[in-house]
């Protein structure tokens, strides 16, 4: 049995000082605009006949109650006829529930407010920096403590995170670095050929990859992969109150979650950096061979003759700093997650952005430092 509702119709018949409106059919939201318009057009006394209504919905009831209130305000008679019991209950319910806007005093933004907001943001940034420093201290303290008391140290977790952070990142890091080497060789050769200095492409590749690009791009990829993974893992534990459960069970959160993760990064990032350097040089060498005819043997000789060990060291020294930044930012953001899924998403993306930004700023500081000390 299909119950097709009758379409709702609103019929108005107006005399000089009286309007009669007859409603028929089943009312729904679709009929509301028409009903509201016709009720607003009424002049003088209004009689509303509901005897033909098969179904009255809350929106029609709302329109009727609104019109009744408006008529009352203008001191005009407003009568309802042909009401069924159901309609009466509905009208009463809606009349009781009529929304009354709570007036909120409008707040105007003054210059003082803007200054205050700016001040709060600056203070929050400093506070954020302090918190990160606090996490660094926490990590170092727990690390030192586990040297004294090795039973606190979670070796299995460390190995697991080394696998996740390091081993699984090898393919993408190697591929990216290889391609960067190829691009550098290609771009470098086109420029250097103009001066007949093609052979210097080896120095170009070696210096830029070993000093800067190898480790910086590795750190950026690891920041994207790992900082987000740390935040998501710790954040979802925070969301499900697992962190609180750990605390009540006397498990130290920093020992259990932070130390293995950050330590794994500290161990793995230099290794990933070395792999990136190696595959960048291979990519560059291959492209030089194809494009400029510099044979691998010649590439190797020039590389060893002209590139000092310091170029490599300058790059690799930065790795542990980047690792600490990525790990601490990721863990800290995870702990900031609230009880809802939105904050998990926000913190995850915030941790990636913060980690990458901090890595690049640190890299810039190192560049200036190394330029000043002259290595």
């Amino acid at each position, binding site marked *: *049995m*299909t*119950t097709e509702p009758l379409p709702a119709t609103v019929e108005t018949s107006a005399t000089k000082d009286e309007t009669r409106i007859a409603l028929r059919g089943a009312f*729904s*939201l*679709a009929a*509301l*605009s*028409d009903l*509201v318009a016709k009720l607003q057009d009424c002049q003088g006394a209004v009689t509303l006949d509901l005897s033909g209504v098969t*179904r009255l*919905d*809350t*929106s029609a009831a*709302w329109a009727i109650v609104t019109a009744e209130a408006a008529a009352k305000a203008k001191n005009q008679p407003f009568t309802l006829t042909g009401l069924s019991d*159901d309609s009466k*209950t*509905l009208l*009463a*319910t*809606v009349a009781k*529930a*009529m*929304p*009354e*806007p*709570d007036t*909120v005093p409008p707040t105007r933004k003054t210059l003082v407010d803007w200054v205050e907001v700016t001040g709060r943001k600056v203070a929050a940034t400093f506070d954020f920096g302090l918190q990160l420093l606090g996490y660094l201290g926490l990590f170092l303290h727990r690390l030192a403590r586990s040297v004294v008391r090795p039973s606190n140290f979670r070796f299995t977790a460390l190995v697991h995170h080394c696998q996740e952070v390091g081993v699984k990142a090898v393919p993408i890091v190697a591929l990216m670095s290889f391609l960067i080497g190829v691009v550098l060789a290609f771009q470098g050769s086109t420029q250097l050929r103009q001066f007949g200095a093609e052979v210097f492409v080896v120095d170009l590749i070696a210096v830029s990859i070993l000093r800067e690009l190898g480790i910086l791009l590795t750190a950026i990829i690891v920041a994207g992969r790992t900082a987000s993974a740390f935040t998501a893992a710790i954040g979802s534990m925070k969301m499900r109150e697992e962190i609180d459960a750990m605390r009540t069970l006397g498990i130290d959160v920093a020992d259990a979650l932070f130390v293995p993760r950050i330590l794994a990064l500290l161990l793995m990032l230099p290794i990933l950096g070395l792999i990136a350097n190696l595959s960048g040089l291979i990519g560059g060498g291959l492209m030089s061979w194809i494009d400029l005819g510099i044979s691998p043997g010649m590439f190797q000789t020039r590389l060893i003759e002209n590139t000092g060990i310091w170029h490599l060291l300058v790059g690799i020294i930065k790795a542990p700093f980047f690792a600490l930044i990525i790990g601490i930012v990721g863990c800290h953001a995870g702990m900031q997650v609230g009880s*809802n*899924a*939105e*904050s998990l998403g926000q913190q995850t993306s915030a941790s990636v952005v913060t980690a990458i930004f901090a890595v690049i700023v640190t890299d810039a500081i190192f560049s200036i430092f190394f330029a000043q000390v002259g290595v």
Partner: protein
Amino acid sequence: MTNADQSRETVIRIRGLRNQFGRHVVHENLDLDVYRGEVLGVVGGSGTGKSVLLRSISGLQIPTAGEIDVLGTNVLTASDDQRTALEQRWGVMFQDGALFSSLNVRENIEVPMRHVEGLSPKLRSQMADLKISLAGLPYLAGDKFPSELSGGMRKRAGLARALALDPEILFLDEPTAGLDPIGAADFDILIRQLSKSMGLTVFLVTHDLDTLHATCDRIAVLAEKRVLVTGTMKEMLAVEHPWVHEYFHGPRARAAMDAIPAKKDG
């Protein structure tokens, strides 16, 4: 089935429903009728497929076999247009409200109204305000985002969204789960009032004995993969089946029973 039942219009008719997940059979040969204007409470132990039944009727879960008719439309064979028409005649309230987190409460309630042609944005937001108020939320709740609401308020907002199009059938999944006793009792009264004044047919899945006492006209018990018995609370008390007996005669049931006279007045 009594004579009174036969004279009433059936709005949901389920015959021979079978739901199966892998090898695990949840429903087998399940029959159920829901009549217009009644509040039907579905109870059953954990894992008896109460929510699966609700999801099957509302089309979120395709059953392995069986027939489900809602308001005269076969849910399983309906065309897309028929389904759309049907979906505007029912409302579903999920356990935690399932509000869209990127919209505030008012916008959430406006979502189903957007399909209605010729409804101006102003009228739409006025209608949303009415639904907010009908669901017992303060006016200012409309501007809040779901994450800023308490669990009870989220449920009310979910109810307001389910009521947005003035549905004929309302599906409620565990409406009082996770609410404190006072909030749960308020919610029971609200459901009862709305179902009476709006002429709603309510299909509610619950664990809460107080809700069963306070709001339901009829109770359906899910056990042994089918609807074991249906009937009023009084009829349930006479059922001999061990689980049903345990459920309606346990210490919690007795406590809920003692509280009915006070509740019915509300």
